[in-house]
């Protein structure tokens, strides 16, 4: 572990010692899983968005860093401030009204360059302005939303969204980081957060799956269809090449959570070829097949993009496989 002398009077943060990880993490997607009011580029650049859905019109406006969400039935208008922005690209807002929390019925989608109905809410037929404004969240769903998009949700304590830190901070994954930091400030380096480096591929999948959903969770809930393509740990574990004791197929083999996602297809070739390269050993080649078609851009064929129903976006299917033209979405 890197240990650096403390600058006099400088507040101790994770970056004091772990500057590299902390700096790169500042731009990583999980850090921005939820954005605080006024800090969202999409709203800053789309200052006046509107859409008509059935009998209701929606308008999201941003002025001086304050965003508002309004819904009107032509006679009355309900306007609420946007405090919680969920998602870095496509985004949905959690709204508060009379002490209740609602998922906004419309969301912003970059591909649509504007507002459209929130995925999963297509079947809702609003009967009044409040219902048109959003879907009221059950207490557990509010908690899950804030716990996966923010930091500071404490088990066993009532959720207070105003106290949740937007985005995932270090402590969110590295439980004990705060204590470690406090102790380190006193030159005590014995209290370390539990190391995640020792997790095997199955455990990493379960760890990431706390929010990205595990294979177990999908099975327990009997979720089926392309709407669940966005749950990468579940899709990855469907792959024939996934096995829990091989770090080459772990989530971390391809993704560094402290860094932005690499969208260069070629970047992932080396990850695939770590197993599927030609080998001098006949037995090794037989165990891990090599691709007869190409040796590059593996993911473009073997991890196809799948349209998320109603999501105005495509997700990379992490179910690694030989894809046959025209075949239905595999469970």
């Amino acid at each position, binding site marked *: 572990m890197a240990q650096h002398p403390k600058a006099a009077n400088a507040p101790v943060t994770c970056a004091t010692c772990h500057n590299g990880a902390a700096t790169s993490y500042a731009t990583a997607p999980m850090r921005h899983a939820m954005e605080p009011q006024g800090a969202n580029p999409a709203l800053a650049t789309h200052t006046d968005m509107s859409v008509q859905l059935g009998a209701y019109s929606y308008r999201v406006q941003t002025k001086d860093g304050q965003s508002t969400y309004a819904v009107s039935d032509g006679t009355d208008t309900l306007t609420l401030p946007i405090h919680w922005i969920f998602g870095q690209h496509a985004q949905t807002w959690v709204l508060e009204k009379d002490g*209740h929390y609602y998922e906004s019925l419309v969301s912003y989608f970059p591909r649509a360059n504007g507002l459209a109905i929130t995925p999963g809410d297509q079947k809702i037929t609003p009967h009044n302005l409040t219902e048109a404004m959003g879907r009221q969240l*059950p*207490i*557990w*769903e509010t*908690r*899950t939303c804030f*716990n996966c998009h923010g930091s500071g949700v404490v*088990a*066993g304590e009532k959720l207070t969204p105003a106290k949740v830190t937007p985005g995932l901070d270090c402590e969110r994954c590295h439980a004990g980081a705060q204590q470690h930091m406090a102790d380190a400030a006193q030159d005590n380096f014995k209290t370390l957060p539990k190391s995640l480096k020792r997790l*095997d591929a*199955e*455990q990493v999948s*379960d*760890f990431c*799956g*706390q929010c990205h959903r*595990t*294979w*177990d969770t*999908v*099975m*327990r809930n*009997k979720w*089926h269809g392309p709407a669940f393509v966005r749950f990468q740990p579940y899709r990855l*574990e*469907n792959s*024939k090449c*996934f*096995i*829990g*004791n*091989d770090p080459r197929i772990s989530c971390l083999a391809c993704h560094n959570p402290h860094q932005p996602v690499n969208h260069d297809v070629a970047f992932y070739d080396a990850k695939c070829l770590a197993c599927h390269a030609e080998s001098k050993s006949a037995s090794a080649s037989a165990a891990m097949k090599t691709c007869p078609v190409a040796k590059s851009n593996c993911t473009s064929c073997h991890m196809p993009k799948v349209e998320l129903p109603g999501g105005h976006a495509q997700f990379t299917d992490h179910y690694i496989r030989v894809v046959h033209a025209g075949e239905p979405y595999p*469970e």
Partner: protein
Amino acid sequence: MAISVFPSAAARGLLFLSLILALPVAQVRCAARDMPSAHNPMSAPEKAQDKTQETSSQFDDLAARAAAARDQQNLPVAIQLYTQAEQLKPDWQEGWWYLGVLQYSANQFTGAIDAFTRLLQLVPTAVPAMALRGLCEFETGAYDDSLRDLEQAVAHGALNEPHNEPIIRYHLAQLLTHAGRFQEALEQYRVFAEHKADAPDLKIGIALAGMRVASFPKDAADKDREFYLAAGNAGYVFFSGDNEQADGLFGQLFARYPSAPNLHYFYGFLLFPHDPGLAIDQFRGELAVNPGNETANALLALTLVIAGRFTEALEPAQRAYANAPDMEMAQLALGRSLAETGDMRRGAELLNQVLARDPNSLEAHLGLVSIFSRSGNREDAERERKVCRDLAK
């Protein structure tokens, strides 16, 4: 909307009418139509035939008078006439049906049970008779028989008739609670809340099932009724979909009855399918109040497993297994938590122990997937994944 779910006279009247309508016509042949037509008897065989005709004539007369008395709602006379008619022709299915229904309506439950039993001997698939016999058995205190009959009737579609559904479901829920099958009882009670059906004893029933009290609402002690009513109301509100209000109601109950056994368990059980984290808090709350609550302890362990908190699950799982080694929940929780914290061999043993008894236990198969995957056993892992996918269809 309030739906009466109690065996009141009015409810019985409703049931009476709807069951009559519901009984398949083909199952109740009209015996009178099967009787041979009359002609002049002269010889010995003809005399015997004459005797048959006389009986037939008597039967026709009794059947007609019984139907008339029934139409006039004259229960005592109708019962008497149907009884006489059945003595002449014991295979008259329609007669047994009406005799049973009339006796049920007149609170003559033992006689009704006999009539429905005779009908079921003739027509074993007469679902309405099965259901009504179950309700009669409930009234006579033959609870095991009642549960058997109502479950069988439900399995054959007795709940598909909207008029009959509430009374059958309500009695079934009570009987399931009495039999200690609390989860199944709550599933029946949930339907009432979802349809906003309301009645005081219904909520007491919900509370009894939720707090694992194997008793009937009618037997709840006066001193406990207020508590049960409030707890049942909280459960009812939860089932009806207003989880925020329910959360507030449970909070009030915890403040007012801090040491009530199984109250935290009840709320945890309701939360369990939605959010393991919130359920865990409640199970811990229950154990703080009632450390000896082994069901809460086992469910806590299993919920921690489902939440992926295997290290935390280990201690309650070990305790649950030590106290109840045959409890499936304890075997699952200990098996999975041991496997995930290092002891795969013992973990697999316990999970296989569950599968020996319940081959379709998804949790056990999920545990084996993890064990085989983490130990690099690709073939077995894939086989177990396939089993899970099939179970999850």
